């Protein structure tokens, strides 16, 4: 057997490939094993291709509202096949980019499915049926997650879709039932509804975007209902029947729904099966590997990062954890404070939303006084000028210390705007520095400033 590698990464998603790149920078002899596509779900079947689709939807919406801006434009024709093709092209281009980056960094990439053997070496089953045995001083499991199925609605790739099917549809469905109003469900509901599909959204929890701040959920729910999406919250799917041309679904409250297709987006489960994890000392609980913020597990040589370790299941969180993990491995540190960084979460449906830190309910549950500031975008000059004066910026502070506990934005480019607060909170600025900072006029970002002022009773434009 060849000399062992310093690091073996299983999974080439945003956690794994970023970890491998950093490891190569740190001069670790690194090998990455990927069973399907470099770039993982994010790049191939997640974040990136959906952003391509949602950009199409946003552009369509703008064209439809062009008359408000004094532009007479006819209703555009939708070339659905081209819309989907562009999304695939974007993914393919970036996939090539990751391949190139890994090659340039000197990371050995092996195609195949990896698993731990009883002697703790890693066995790779290659696409051509050959197996290869690898040894490494350190291992990172970054195998990601897969969509959770509903027992009454198993995925069939035709009538019952996972997000992957929704990204590869051959025709625009006349009607679509989306089950699950988290980020994935919301984004597809928004995309298909904008293109003309009749969309119904069903969520078992009491509100859409259940992980978001309650104000964000309420605002978004109202906005999408106005946009034509039928929303049902606080109700589960009781039973379902898949017919040749449609799916019939009965909800627990007795309501019957039917649609041409159903998208099941009820969450993700970690990819821990078939990895031979029983030959390691890692602890798997509920299908997730137990790991800290730096990817350390209960096995000193096996690390785990990203979705396979649980939530928040976000690409940027996986990448950050991958970096922290590799840096710990390279430094030789056994342990150390594994403080979880602040992780912003973003939803690109219409309206867009983003948040970082605690939501108001969580902040209240700390039992210490807080201050909350809200600034509506209909008071923002820039938002009005661009015809997007819908949304708000909300900030939550600890009253005693002035610590920024959380921030939540709904409105145009919310996922871009949130970084002002992510940076501020990571640097532990208090309300004083945020107030001292000069924000350019006219910008949407001014609303961040106003929200902070509002939290301390001194807003200027409301």
């Amino acid at each position, binding site marked *: 057997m060849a000399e062992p590698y310093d690091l073996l990464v299983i999974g080439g998603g945003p956690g794994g490939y970023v970890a491998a790149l950093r490891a190569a920078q740190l001069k670790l002899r690194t090998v990455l094993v990927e069973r399907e596509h470099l770039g993982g779900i994010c790049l191939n079947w997640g974040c990136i291709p959906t952003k391509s689709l949602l950009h199409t939807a946003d552009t369509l919406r703008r064209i439809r509202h062009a008359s408000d801006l004094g532009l007479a434009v006819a209703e555009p024709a939708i070339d659905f096949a081209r819309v989907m093709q562009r999304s695939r092209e974007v993914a393919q281009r970036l996939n090539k980019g990751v391949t190139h980056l890994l090659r340039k960094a000197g990371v050995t990439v092996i195609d195949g499915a990896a698993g731990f053997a009883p002697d703790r070496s890693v066995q790779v089953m290659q696409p051509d049926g050959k197996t290869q045995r690898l040894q490494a001083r350190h291992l990172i499991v970054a195998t990601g997650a897969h969509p959770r199925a509903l027992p009454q609605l198993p995925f069939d790739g035709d009538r019952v879709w996972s997000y992957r099917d929704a990204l590869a549809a051959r025709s625009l469905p006349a009607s679509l039932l989306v089950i699950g109003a988290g980020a994935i469900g919301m984004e597809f509901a928004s995309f298909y509804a904008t293109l003309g599909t009749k969309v119904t959204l069903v969520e078992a929890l009491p509100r859409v975007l259940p992980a978001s701040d309650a104000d964000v959920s309420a605002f978004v729910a109202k906005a999408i209902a106005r946009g034509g999406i039928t929303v049902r919250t606080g109700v589960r799917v009781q039973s379902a029947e898949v017919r040749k041309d449609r799916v019939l679904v009965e909800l627990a409250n007795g309501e019957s729904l039917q649609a041409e297709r159903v998208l099941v987006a009820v969450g993700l489960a970690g990819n821990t099966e078939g990895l031979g994890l029983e030959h390691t000392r890692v602890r798997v609980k509920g299908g997730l590997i137990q790991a*800290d913020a730096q990817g350390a597990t209960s096995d000193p040589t096996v690390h785990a990062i990203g979705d396979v370790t649980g939530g928040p299941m976000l690409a940027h969180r996986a990448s950050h954890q991958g970096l922290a993990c590799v840096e710990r491995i390279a430094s030789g540190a056994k342990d150390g404070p594994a403080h979880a960084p602040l992780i912003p979460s973003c939803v690109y449906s219409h309206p867009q939303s983003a948040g970082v830190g605690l939501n108001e309910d969580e902040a209240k549950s700390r039992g210490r006084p807080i201050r909350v500031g809200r600034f509506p975008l209909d008071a923002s000059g820039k938002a009005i000028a661009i015809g997007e004066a819908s949304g708000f910026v909300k900030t939550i502070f600890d009253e005693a210390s002035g610590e920024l506990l959380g921030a939540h934005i709904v409105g145009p480019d919310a996922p871009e705007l949130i970084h002002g607060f992510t940076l501020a909170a990571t640097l532990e600025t208090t309300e004083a520095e945020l107030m001292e900072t000069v924000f350019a006029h006219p910008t949407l970002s001014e609303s961040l400033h106003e929200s902070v002022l509002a939290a301390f009773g001194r807003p200027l434009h409301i």
Partner: protein
Amino acid sequence: MRRELVVPKLGLTMTEGTLLEWLVKPGERFKAEQGLFVIESEKAAVEVPAEADGVLLEASAAVGATLALGSPVGYWDDGAANEAATAAPMAAARESEATAPAFAALVATSAPAHSGIRQFATPLARRLAREQGVDLHGVQGSGPRGRIRARDLPSAATSAATMAVATPVSAPAASPASTAAGTLRPATPTEQTIARRLVASKQEIPHFYLSVEADVSALMTLRVQLNEANPQQRFTLNHFIVAAVGRAIAQMPEVNCVWTAEGILSLPTADVGMAVHTGRGLTAPVLRDVGNKRLSEIARDAAAAGVKAQAGRLSMADMSGGAITVSNAGMHDVTYMASIINPGQSMILGIGSVRGVFRPDADDRPVLRRELGMVLSADHRVLDGVTALKFLKCIVQALERPLSLVA
């Protein structure tokens, strides 16, 4: 005033020590005599107490570092004013006249009173430190380039850094790691030291063991009588055993010796170590000149050493010397205990519980006796079996004729 903390000399032969543990965090207040850090010499790990009330400014030496005698491990503030401390705020005040008031407050706190070195701290950390009266100088920052964050302040456990905490992340590494094979917890520095010393002792010293039973019926009766006669002065069984060992050494000074790299060292006084179980583990203060002391003096010394041990304030000197330690497990219901010799000594006497047993008398009739099981572990490089057995018999005789211990 800023003052230095150095590696103290803990024993005659000590030239360097290893910093095992900091017991206070930078920025934390401490009282005189409170333990500040733990230093390990070749003999033992010792807590170094504070000489006066103060605040730890800086823990400059890292845990695990081996340092020469007298080298600095950190800095503390004794609370006394000095020139630098009064000069810095004045400079900050001058600066603040030219800036906006809110900003001036930040500038003033970012200029440390104790040195000219700029201390980088987040705004939140500076504000919390100001409100809590924590001196940021010397607080170890966990941020990039040592930037101090709110979570680095001594009060972090009860305050701030709330956003980071809110992100749910399972962290088995910080707590004991559990696997199907069991639960793994990293050993503390103290546990590692104890482990190292025990392994060294058991591997280097050729132990041999002698076990006997002493009839302590008379001693038990005498002890009750003495304690009833003078309730102010309580004698324990252990006091008698330590005294008996001391008398035995005085009778047989040839056993009072230890193996050293240079040769066999005979000790001048009949000192006896006494194992004390504390919350931090086992320690063994050494009682001096036991062979020449009255039982009441031994009881007094033992009590004082016990108090000091429980408070974690034994010095290296308190624990060094002596050829033998008495380790009493009698309260734990055990008949015999064969112990590992403390490094630097040549014997240890393991004491079991007092048992009521029937023994045949001269006419083979059963008689109830109170017996104490004892096991002497001895270093065969220093003692042969016959000498050790003779010594053990001396101890038994003293215990069986307890009046000799009181006389």
